């Protein structure tokens, strides 16, 4: 397990072989290449799409997790299983389902046309919006679960205390619930953000090859362009994002937990 990652790490400073593969000649060109405008724009595009996906997952996932936590306990398990169930089906199939749904001849478009909402079928597929929807669909459960866990662990007495001390519902939520569930929410955000960045299937199938993300670039470096060292740099940059985000998360978690007298 370690060995493959170490190999990738070592590849980053090597030169690409003439026929693909790797030559053991030291270079930092692979890093400077990653800073060229074309690749920076791909990186920026990935950050943007992963960022929007994460924001939407937060907007939909947090209230959903909150609603599940308020359900009577016998319904909670059912509600959670229903959230996770689609996650266990084949990823390609789940992405493919959106091709069927959003297609110009697909059910959504025919419904809109038949209702007279739009005159002609909309181009819903093969654009950035479709990529965001596909990624959101793929990773939404990863947002809901950690947020639910942190809301559920929250001591209800803390909220009652806030209410008793005169804070309104909104104030209680903003000053008590939200800060205390921040670490779990950040975990959820990382779980959505990082795989969204590295995903190459959704941009390819739903983006119609027009939306290139880091994942596609890495795949191409390894399978078509055969520039493994450059691909290794790109892959490690995604892993570095993961590590940095986790470091921020645990720092925030420590600060918030440090402020409380009980663990």
């Amino acid at each position, binding site marked *: 397990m370690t060995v493959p990652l170490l190999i990738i790490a070592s590849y980053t400073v090597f030169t690409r072989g003439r026929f693909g593969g790797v030559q053991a000649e030291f270079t930092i060109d692979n890093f400077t290449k990653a800073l060229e405008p074309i690749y920076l724009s791909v990186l920026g595009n990935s950050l943007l799409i992963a960022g929007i996906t994460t924001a939407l997952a937060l907007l939909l996932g947090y209230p959903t997790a909150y609603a599940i936590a308020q359900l009577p306990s016998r319904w909670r398990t059912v509600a959670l299983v229903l959230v996770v169930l689609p996650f266990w089906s084949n990823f*390609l199939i789940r992405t493919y*389902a959106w091709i069927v749904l959003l297609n110009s001849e697909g059910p959504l478009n025919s419904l809109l046309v038949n209702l007279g909402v739009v005159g002609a079928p909309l181009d819903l597929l093969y654009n950035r919006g479709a990529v965001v929807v596909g990624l959101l*669909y793929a990773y*939404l459960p990863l947002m809901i679960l950690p947020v639910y866990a942190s809301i559920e662990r929250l001591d209800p007495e803390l909220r009652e205390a806030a209410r008793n001390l005169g804070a309104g519902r909104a104030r209680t939520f903003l000053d008590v619930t939200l800060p205390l569930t921040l670490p779990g929410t950040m975990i959820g955000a990382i779980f959505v953000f990082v795989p969204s960045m590295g995903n190459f299937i959704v941009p390819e199938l739903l983006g119609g090859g027009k939306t290139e993300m880091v994942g596609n670039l890495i795949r191409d470096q390894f399978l078509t362009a055969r520039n493994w060292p450059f691909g290794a740099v790109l*892959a490690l940059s995604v892993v570095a994002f993961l590590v940095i985000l986790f470091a921020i998360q645990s720092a925030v978690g420590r600060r918030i937990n440090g402020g409380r007298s009980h663990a």
Partner: protein
Amino acid sequence: MRRLGWLNLPLWLTYAFLYLPIMVLVVMSFNASKTPFTWTGFSTRWYVELVHDDLIRQGFINTMIVAIGATVFATILGTLLAIGLNRYFRSALLEAYALTPAIIPDLALAIGLLAFFALVGVTLGLHTVLLAHVVFGMAFVAAVVLARLGHTDPSLEEASRDLGAGPVSTFLRITVPSLMPAIIAGALLVFTLSLDEFVIAFFTDGPSTPTLPIVIYSMVRFGVTPEINALAALLLLVSFTIVIAAQRITRLTDSL
């Protein structure tokens, strides 16, 4: 809580979002039309054609070989890894380290394994996919078993040793049975993950032995046929059955 009824709105939105595409797919799989998007009438012809598709059948067989093999090896190695970590190295860092394949982006792991296989000089094929799946499956099994180990009572093992049982017999009669629910849960987890795994298989598989997800990928990419709808509906059924069965089994063994 009735006052907070409006709070359930996001819940229904989420469920609609999660299940609408799946339901459309299942409905479309019974479509008689040749184009996979427009409805013309009810038919089961795509299920019939599916059964007679050699590419899909071979993909299915390949996938089963990998999934069963990976489950067996990953379960044994993962359980041993968890017990070893728990007994000899109680370090949070090492634990986190052993579990990285479960957290790290699959693409990074995939290219790492590809680079490893290239360096060692093995030809790619089903055996390399199997090995790759053992690597990440092991981490998942270890994670589940480690969580359970936190709740087991070490005095049971000590009692067994005091009563004259050897280390092997203690391991087989006390340690393993007490971890059984976690081991079964871990094994089912690996099996389900391996069955659907695409990214790692895509990078570590040879050209002549595609697993089912790779077959699906090329089908979806080069020309959409209604057959995929039928295949998708069947796969959904299989995945959901396994997950629900896993829930039942873990609940059953937990209550023992």
